[in-house]
């Protein structure tokens, strides 16, 4: 099987699974317990927190463990909106965010918040000028994904952060679910985000793990209340095995970032050239300026599902643009935002690489794809 759907989820590293199992076996105490066993487990939890804080350059007390990207995004949005509504109710985001951001904003709109959506160009990138124009005195939050999950566009986070911090009091939330471990993601004073959200299972960690992290102490209300764990901001017994496994996955991803980046870039560029040989049968949604692990393309007048089935029959796993929305029938909001020609709207396919892919698989894929094109399009 050639697994090219790493932006949907990844296969966990064996080392990560080993950690998960060993912590479950040997360090199962509740880290909030005051007996020595609990204290020891708490030390392990704090060591994991420290390791992640070090990677993203913030203080350990500003790193909270969550159940994943969706919870982290919901937490950032509802938490900041609730705690800052005395300052204003104006929020800015982009039209190509993940559903866990867009749906949260739909809820807020019903509660009387005013949400404005930045448009993107045909490369999927926002305009800094538009952002500057939309910022207001009462803007309390700006949410922006670092890398788009459906086609890999990278947003200019540094420039956006500078503009936001210079011209407003807004808190800048960056959804780094698709970028962490693939590009450099960290806090950077006024030239970086105030909130980062990260998911474990996209970087060969285990499912149900995630992070929300802050650059500094922020006004944010908890999403889940209860026993006051995680500095009173995220209640519920902290799942230490998950947290430690996540710390390990983060370390491994960061250590291999450069090498994977080079590898993915080479493959992506190579496949782009390959797709271009099919002339106007194929349209590339991704660009070479985008994140190298995601390559989206579309086959003229063909439904995505058909291509997925044809490839699957030959052992290649890819997906339509996003796993979360692929079960819905309508065209994805990202594809709409990009103004893709109607001949190509239905057939968007996403290839996404992970640390476990090999050069050989790229070559095999090319041969298989040629067969599929012959079968479906006769070219």
């Amino acid at each position, binding site marked *: 099987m050639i697994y090219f759907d790493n932006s949907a989820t990844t296969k966990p590293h064996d080392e990560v699974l080993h950690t998960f199992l060993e912590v479950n076996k040997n360090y199962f105490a509740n880290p909030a317990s*005051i007996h020595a066993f609990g204290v020891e487990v708490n030390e*392990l939890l704090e*060591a994991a927190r420290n390791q992640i804080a070090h990677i993203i350059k913030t203080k350990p007390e500003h790193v909270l463990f969550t159940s994943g990207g969706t919870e982290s995004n919901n937490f950032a949005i509802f938490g900041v909106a609730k705690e800052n509504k005395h300052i204003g109710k104006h929020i800015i985001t982009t039209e190509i965010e993940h559903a866990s951001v867009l749906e949260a904003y739909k809820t807020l709109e019903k509660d009387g918040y005013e949400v404005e959506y930045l448009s993107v160009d045909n490369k999927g990138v926002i305009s800094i000028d538009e952002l500057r124009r939309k910022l207001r005195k009462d803007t309390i939050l700006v949410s922006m994904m670092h890398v788009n999950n459906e086609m890999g566009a990278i947003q200019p986070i540094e420039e956006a952060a500078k503009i936001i911090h210079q011209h407003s009091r807004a808190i800048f939330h960056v959804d780094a679910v698709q970028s962490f471990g693939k590009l450099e993601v960290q806090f950077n004073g006024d030239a970086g985000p105030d909130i980062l959200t990260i998911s474990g299972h996209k970087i060969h960690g285990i499912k149900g793990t995630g992070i929300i992290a802050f650059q500094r102490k922020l006004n944010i209300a908890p999403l889940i209340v209860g026993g006051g764990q995680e500095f009173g901001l995220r209640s519920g017994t902290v799942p230490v095995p998950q947290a430690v496994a996540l710390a390990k996955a983060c370390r491994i991803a960061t250590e291999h970032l450069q090498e994977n980046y080079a590898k993915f870039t080479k493959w992506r560029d190579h496949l782009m050239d390959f797709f271009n040989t099919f002339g106007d049968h194929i349209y590339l949604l991704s660009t070479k300026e985008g994140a190298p692990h995601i390559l989206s393309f579309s086959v003229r007048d063909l439904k995505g599902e058909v291509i997925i089935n044809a490839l699957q029959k030959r052992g290649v796993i890819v997906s339509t643009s996003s796993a979360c929305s692929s079960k819905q029938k309508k065209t994805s909001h990202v594809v709409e935002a990009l103004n893709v020609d109607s001949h190509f709207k239905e057939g968007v396919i996403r290839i996404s690489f992970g640390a476990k892919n090999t050069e050989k698989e790229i070559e095999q894929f090319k041969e298989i794809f040629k067969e599929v094109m012959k079968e479906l399009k006769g070219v």
Partner: protein
Amino acid sequence: MLWNEILIRYGELTTKGRNRKDFIHRLKNNIKYTFSDIAPLTVQAERDRMYIKLDNEKQFEVLMEKLPSVFGIQSFSPVAICDREIENIQQLAQKIMDRYKDQQITFKVEVHRSDKTYPLKTYDIQLAVGGFLLKHNPNLSVNVKNPDVELRIEIRKEAAYLMSEIIYGAGGMPVGSNGKSLLLLSGGIDSPVAGYLMMKRGVRIDAIHFYSPPYTSEQSLQKVKDLANELTKFGSSIHLHVIPFTELQVLIKDSVPKEMLMTTTRRVMMKVADRVREEIGALGLVTGESLGQVASQTLESLTAINEVTNTPILRPLISFDKLDIIDIAQKIGTYEISIKPYEDCCTIFTPANPKTRPKIDRVTYFESQVDFEEYIERAVKNREIYTLPEKRMKVEKFKHLL
């Protein structure tokens, strides 16, 4: 890398007559100590400034992050160095100003020629560099009275030195230049702040903590270690003396009337602390007491507590409001640790109505009925001493999991 060294300007030291040499020496050592993780650092100390050579980006980052918390530094600046050719100075000046290139800013060029034989005069250099910058960066404009950025060029015999920003340091005096004292560290908000303020005045700190297992948990001890660890950020290591206090505390509870429990406990703590102070050769005792904050901190109570020793008891927070103390605690990073909710030895056995105005003769009468001496000696002898910052053994233990 743009920067070659960091220039440090001393704070109050420059006014300190003959002791200055000693102060400078201490500051140099404290800097070397604080940055031992990025060693080796070449530090060159002169009469009124100090230079740290930069070998790599990592050193620069760590220094910029931590220098603002080292006492005895008034301000510091990253410095870029080039040879004295005016073309090279221009190029370097442009590189420095490039960091502001996206902003509309005003600037001026300030020139110091400590080598007067340099062929170009001050004004010529200003003109050459300023003109060059204006030509290459349309966002710049000149403002000599109140510029956003002052680009400073120093021409010395061996090279030209350029800098563009002045970052304020923590002020105060190098830790260790004003002797050593023993801090009574409870785990609350106040005592770490008191320690910090004394360190700022150049006092080296040892800390003492009264530990009463099983009434207080291991986590409360860990909290105190974390607090002491946090204080080491300000440029010195700290010994933490942990006194096994259970036995004494129970004895006190059984021997004096309830309402006097608090006063006697404090007095005994002070006696123990004074004994430890003597052993380690410290000169004073430091507490986080603030007048009127709780029953033990009224003038009457403080008098009763003081009565057990002649050692100076330093109370830097005596006139501080609680909110001001919290502000400092947040600034120095101890607040988050202090508010963790574990019992400490002060909060157990607390009576509902402690005396706010204890009478010394009554207190001494009840205390004279018990022989504390043997217990005090044992507590002092059996204390455990931790040296902070603790080498992080814990992380080692978990390394294979992370």
